[in-house]
């Protein structure tokens, strides 16, 4: 029984990371209706920036926040330079660019920082809590993810800019006609997603170690989480991330073994797309005709 509880709690902890990646995917999806396959690699690259800052002697938290700012600006810059020319292009053209970005960031990280595995510090004390159920870092990661989620929710729900991003995503023409600069909103959405990805990267790096491929699996879990929860629903994405985290751990421990965890996740993705494309909590836009 205790082993089971431990698996669930560990699942919740990694689920928190998947939840933040899922959230970043949903952010981009909400403003562009596209899935950014480079999301994981962007987070990985930002984590390397944090690593470099800490390596040069900056204390953890200043490095953390500076990285988030750099990631935000970098994400917005990418949208302005690489994606803006494709605003009216087909989805497929955008997907090619996303894959290109993914490979670019992966190779760039390898080139700049080598492929050697690095340790990445955790800001939280290195000990177990709750009778050894959970490490302090895991709890910290959950708290950080939760805080980010609440801030984002408040931003989208209660600020005019958050509303403008949602309006621009839903009906770009109407949004322009009420004066919203939709193109700027897209850059803002990309910046936010990149910042969330950076936070996820910095939270996962102490667990999986820092190397250029650390996010590839996590992106897939995050994607599954976003789909299960409903790709257009931030809360659903977070719930989906946690569900995937727990499911992955339980399946791995009791049913299929660790080798098939990623396969199981892929099957979940296919099943959701086939049988419940809107996800568990996805908003079905009701339209009277």
């Amino acid at each position, binding site marked *: 029984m205790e082993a089971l509880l431990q698996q669930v709690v560990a699942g919740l902890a990694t689920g928190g990371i998947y939840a933040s990646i899922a959230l970043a995917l949903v952010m981009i999806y909400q403003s562009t209706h596209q899935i950014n396959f480079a999301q994981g690699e962007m987070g990985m690259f930002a984590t390397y920036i944090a690593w470099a800052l800490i390596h040069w002697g900056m204390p953890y938290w200043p490095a953390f926040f500076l990285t988030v700012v750099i990631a935000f600006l970098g994400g917005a810059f990418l949208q302005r330079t690489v994606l803006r020319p494709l605003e009216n292009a087909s989805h497929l053209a955008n997907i090619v660019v996303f894959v290109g970005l993914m490979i670019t960031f992966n190779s760039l990280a390898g080139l700049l920082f080598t492929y050697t595995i690095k340790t990445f510090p955790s800001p939280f004390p290195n000990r177990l809590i709750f009778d050894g159920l959970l490490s302090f870092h895991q709890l910290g990661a959950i708290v950080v993810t939760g805080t980010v989620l609440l801030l984002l929710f408040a931003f989208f729900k209660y600020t005019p800019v958050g509303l403008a991003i949602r309006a621009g995503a839903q009906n770009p023409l*109407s949004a322009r006609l009420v004066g919203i600069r939709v193109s700027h909103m897209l850059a803002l959405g990309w910046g936010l997603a990149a910042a969330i990805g950076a936070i996820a990267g910095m939270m996962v790096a102490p667990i999986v170690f820092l190397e250029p491929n650390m996010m590839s699996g996590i992106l897939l879990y995050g994607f599954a989480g976003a789909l299960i929860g409903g790709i257009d629903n931030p809360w659903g994405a977070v719930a989906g991330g946690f569900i995937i985290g727990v499911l992955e751990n339980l399946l791995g421990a009791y049913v299929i073994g660790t080798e098939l965890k990623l396969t199981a996740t892929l099957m979940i993705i296919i099943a959701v797309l086939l049988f419940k494309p809107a996800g568990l909590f996805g908003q079905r836009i009701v339209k*009277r005709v």
Partner: protein
Amino acid sequence: MKVLSIKGLEAWYGRTKVLHGLDVHLDEGGFTAVLGANGAGKTTLLRAISGLVTVKGDIEFAGKSLVGVAPEDIVRRGIAHVPVGRGTFLALTVEENLRAGAYLLRNKADIAAAIERAYSYFPRLRERRMQQAGTLSGGEQQMLAISRGIVSRPRLLLLDEPSVGLAPLIVEEIFEIMKQIRTVDGVSILVVEQNATLALKVADHAFVMETGRLVLSGTAAEIANDDGIRRSYLGY
């Protein structure tokens, strides 16, 4: 005084020319209807005014040219455009739709007052303020669309086919309120309409368009009472 002066306006979709040199002048505070059959270029005229199509010629609003100005900036000059099909933000609530409409107002009290004003014209929207806009009936969505236009407190309101797909009673109700909006708020209104009978009842001026050209203009009464015009251009 003229609020909008259009001279020699030409517009294209790709290589197809759809407006062939239009001259239109709107009185400040007036209610003007643009009539004509499908494909006459009425919607394009509105799209040209709000910067959604590239044009040649001259569009002057409140003494300044609008040619080459982006749609986002034309709203800032004081023109609100309610597109055909209503342009509702379907997944947002009614109130969020109005808040989006009031995006350019910076002051919280102004936003609240503008939304309150829209609710006073269309009380039904107040009842449904927390409802997802996609669940509204067609008539309510049109009311929402007009409200979204007026909460930005425009000087000129462009309405594209507000009657499309609506029951005659609702259309009359909506036109009646548009008349009030014009007199109470002093907004100039330019409405594109296929329902000529109704449009001529509420408007004070009207233009008739045919294949991208202006064929007639005059007071609504003149046009409504001329049997020849009615039969040749308005088809009733």
